[in-house]
């Protein structure tokens, strides 16, 4: 009993330390900026989305200086290039994944969405996000990002405790507990390892040679992978995919509608996004 109290006391102290940003008040940081004036002067009722302007809050995790964002708009921009020697395989997988989405994932996720209310599904998403903390933690450590690693650890403890096993996400109100998310694939990129080539995996989706090594690392860092028997681990992962898809139904369809060449668009979008994350 004594030992339990001791452990509890240490844990509580640690958690309070996490919540308390250096020099900042303990209360959650809520954007408190004035509502912008409406040009037409109409009344805004509560149900309407409120447009808020936040002053430059000086967030705790400053990204790379974006001075290059403001270069001459008429100059040819540097393009992200990726070689695609496996293009025939990749296009086949792209179409395969397309069918898997429309014939399998979307119907299941739609049914799932109809049964479970959104707050529950968000809770499940939070749970999985919380337990995959080792992936993000390793990503930070491998890049020697100490502050971000600490933030990840703190958030994990905070949400596990105050968020009841991670279903809640009370940490979202604390900017210093929400670092940009890292993973081993990004770490490899930061080490200077180039993408290699583009590859589309069945079901898993777009990736590159380097990021695929990252995906393998993720597998070993994911606690769900160690659930026995393997069938159960697979089922849990399936549940996660269905749950998270139920929250983003319509995104893939919108993407296809917007694209002139969906395959090329996805390839470019993936590489751009990863490049941005690596450089962050």
């Amino acid at each position: 009993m004594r030992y339990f109290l001791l452990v509890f006391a240490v844990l509580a102290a640690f958690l309070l330390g996490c919540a308390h940003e250096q020099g900042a008040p303990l209360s959650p940081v809520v954007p408190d900026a004035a509502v912008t004036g409406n040009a037409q002067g109409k009344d805004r009722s509560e149900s309407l989305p409120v447009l808020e302007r936040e002053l430059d809050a000086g967030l705790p995790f400053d990204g790379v200086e974006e001075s290059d964002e403001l270069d001459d708009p008429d100059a040819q921009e540097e393009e992200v290039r990726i070689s695609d020697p496996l293009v025939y395989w990749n296009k086949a997988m792209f179409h395969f994944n397309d069918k898997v989405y429309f014939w399998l994932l979307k119907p299941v996720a739609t049914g799932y969405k109809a049964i479970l209310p959104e707050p529950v599904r968000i809770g499940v998403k939070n749970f999985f996000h919380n337990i995959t903390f080792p992936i993000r933690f390793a990503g930070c450590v491998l890049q020697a990002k100490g502050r971000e690693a600490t933030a990840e650890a703190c958030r994990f403890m905070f949400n596990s405790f105050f968020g009841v096993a991670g279903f809640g996400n009370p940490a979202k109100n604390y900017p210093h507990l929400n670092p940009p998310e890292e993973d081993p694939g990004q770490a490899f990129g930061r080490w200077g390892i180039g993408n290699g080539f583009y590859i589309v995996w069945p079901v898993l989706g777009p990736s590159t040679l380097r990021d695929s090594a990252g995906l393998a690392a993720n597998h070993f860092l994911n606690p769900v992978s160690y659930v026995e028997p393997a069938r159960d681990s697979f089922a849990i992962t399936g549940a996660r995919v269905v749950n998270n898809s139920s929250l983003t139904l319509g995104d893939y369809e919108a993407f296809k509608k917007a694209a002139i060449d969906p395959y090329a668009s996805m390839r470019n979008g993936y590489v751009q996004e990863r490049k941005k994350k690596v450089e962050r």
Partner: protein
Amino acid sequence: MTKRVMGLRIFLVAFSFLSFVSLPPAFGSTALEAVETNVSAVLDVLRDPALKDDSAKEAKEKKLWSIADTMFDYPGLSKRTLGKNWETLNSKQQEEFTDLFSTHLGNVYLDRILAYSSEKVVFDKEKTKEDRALVNTRVLGPSKEIPVDYRMVLKDAGWKVYDVVIEGVSLVENYRSQFKEILKDKGPEYLLETLREKAGDKGR
């Protein structure tokens, strides 16, 4: 004083009042304000109860398009998505491409704004350098937060958007990679035909 001078004075006062009123709304505003004004105008139209039913659809679309027209720098955008390949099109093709692509992009943008019209939009900050600006905004959904950045250029009529960056992905760059493939394999006419199909049935 003589009637003539009096008349002239009145004329000058009236004229100066008119010229003030006729200034473009975004003139003198910052890039952030321009984005805010336009996005809030779009959201207002999308949720205007008077324009809710189908009979008002056309009026609604017309209003949305007029806002999009002031917001985006269509020629600059279109030219940038073709990059070096712009020169491979003749002037008639260039004109049609600009028209088709801007219609398509406007549709995509309005479609997405409609999907997120119930979310909160936060206008974070802007970074300006001479006649260029980067405006950072975020769309806050129940389960996630999407950063949407606008790259803008200051033209005579005010700040115009020449690129939208969503979650780190530049729209212009993304379309450029798509168009590069199509132009390389199939040529300008095929691209225009594809765009005609995409944008032709909808839009203004």
